[in-house]
């Protein structure tokens, strides 16, 4: 049993590490990094920098606090640096969408090309499935970390110092973003196990989210008591998350972790049963 677990752990780690190799040592990865850098250059240079400057104005701060307070996001402007407030508000909504695209090809191309046939003679389908998933999380952790460091750099350039509280806030945002993205990455692991191309996986994910949300909306319209079900959809915790501050934000991590576990469990079953 322990030998099997050790083999699973070793092979899963090899697959995860190989995803980092795919990012840093292949032309496809270099293009992805170049696109990531370009996008973040523009995000930092314009929305984040400009908004941070504007947020220094007391009138604007007062107006925004009032507006955000009305929708329950009282604490959004309370991060130690305005750059982090803008970063947090921006990424918490756009990153999940970006992740749907960036993590779509966890296993589908390999299945369609037949590469999985080479791999399954040497390792379990579980190692492949979970190894690729963890690899995607590692890549996200690294890229989010880099973008946060760039944001901190921008703030230091503007204010001339780096408050200790900003480092703490950066860690909180980094961890929260990773947790927010987990169910979306798991959803793509499942979709990737179901179909044979990344395009189809993206379409399947978007259609599934649309169909589930639409169906639940219809049900809630007719049976208002079911409203509580809407609170279990991926991303449902985001408005509450934006209303929280500091390490307190982690009290909202239960739902995404549970969603991730359920999606991975379904994905694992699909991966086990699917013909190669």
């Amino acid at each position, binding site marked *: 049993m322990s030998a*099997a677990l050790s*083999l699973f752990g070793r*092979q899963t780690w*090899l697959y995860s590490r*190989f995803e980092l*190799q*795919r990012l840093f*040592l*292949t*032309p*496809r*990865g270099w293009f992805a990094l170049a696109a990531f850098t370009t996008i973040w250059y523009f995000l930092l240079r314009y929305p984040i920098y400009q908004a941070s400057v504007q947020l220094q104005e007391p009138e604007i701060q007062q107006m925004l606090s009032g507006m955000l307070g009305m929708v329950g996001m009282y604490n959004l402007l309370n991060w130690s640096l305005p750059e982090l407030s803008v970063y947090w508000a921006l990424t918490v909504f756009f990153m999940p969408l970006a992740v749907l695209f960036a993590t779509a090809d966890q296993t589908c191309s*390999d299945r369609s*090309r*037949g*590469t999985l*046939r*080479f*791999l*399954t*003679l*040497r*390792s*379990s*389908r579980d190692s492949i499935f979970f190894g690729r998933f963890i690899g995607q999380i590692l890549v996200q952790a690294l890229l989010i970390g880099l973008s946060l460091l760039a944001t901190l750099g921008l703030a230091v350039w503007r204010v001339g110092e780096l408050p200790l509280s900003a480092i703490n806030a950066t860690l909180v945002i980094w961890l929260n973003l990773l947790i927010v993205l987990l169910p979306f990455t798991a959803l793509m692991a499942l979709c990737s196990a179901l179909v044979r191309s990344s395009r189809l996986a993206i379409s399947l994910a978007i259609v599934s989210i649309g169909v589930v949300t639409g169906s639940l909306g219809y049900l809630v319209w007719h049976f208002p008591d079911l409203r509580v079900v809407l609170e279990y959809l991926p991303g449902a915790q985001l408005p509450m998350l934006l209303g929280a501050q500091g390490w307190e934000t982690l009290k909202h991590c239960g739902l995404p972790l549970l969603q991730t576990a359920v999606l991975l469990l379904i994905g694992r079953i699909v991966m086990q*049963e699917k*013909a*190669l």
Partner: protein
Amino acid sequence: MSYLIEARNLSKSFGQKAVLQDLTFSLPSGEPIALIGPNGAGKTTLFSLLCGYLPASSGELTVLGHKPGSSALFGRVSALPQDAMLDPNFSLLTQLSFFGQLQGMSKAKALAESRRVLSLVDLAGSADLKATALSHGMRKRVAIAQALMGSPELVMLDEPTAGLDPVNALQVRQLIATLSGEASFIISSHNIFELERLCGTVLYLEHGKLVQQSAVQSAATQGYVTLTLEPGAYTDLLPQLRALPGVIAVSDSQKHEYVLQFDAELAPDFDLTLLMALRQFGWRYRQLTKGQTLEQQLFAVTAKQA
């Protein structure tokens, strides 16, 4: 006795279509095993079941005593799957060494092993290329190379020489012949002459059923001689052959090729008798083979069953 592969009442269906029906067979380790059958006979499906790519619909199947796809078979069973390609984003060396690491090798050993198997298929100079830069034949050879990584006990090759030029096909056949002492091979191919040269046992599938499982040489060599003559006009050839002592039947299987069935007890030196007859009548022969060819052996049986 422990078998390489054991199947009992094995069936596989896709929806309503039964692709494999109630196969029961046991294959011992040793000489390479041929998997033969016409298109659509179920060879690739059987391969996929053996490799664990597909689950069986019913019945039992074990490979080296384990369920296909089981972790106990990792590194012990390898395969050349049909139409499978390596990842186009990485070099051959990177991917093969990754396979080696999955099989439990250290990075350095995996790199050395990758170089070894690439040189076995004459691709040592292409180690840094990506799969997309290779021709069809080269891709096939790389796929064979990956199947030889480590020390597999069973190597399953689906159409190993399809799409290869004659020189490379010969090289692959030689490679299989050389390595067949170290590992057991199962080879699926349409090239019956290739299988005849390489294999000791034949599984013949037709319409998803096992039509025949036999040793290539044993039954076929008893009481049969295959005679191939030089092109030319031979008068009264068939009556003269049928009149030879001990002859039971003569059939002309192909142009200038005749299969003579004889009573081995009545005429133990039948080959000598035949050679003397050839000399007496001035018939020039190109080849004289003891036994039937695999093609004759298989198709004579299936024709009789039909």
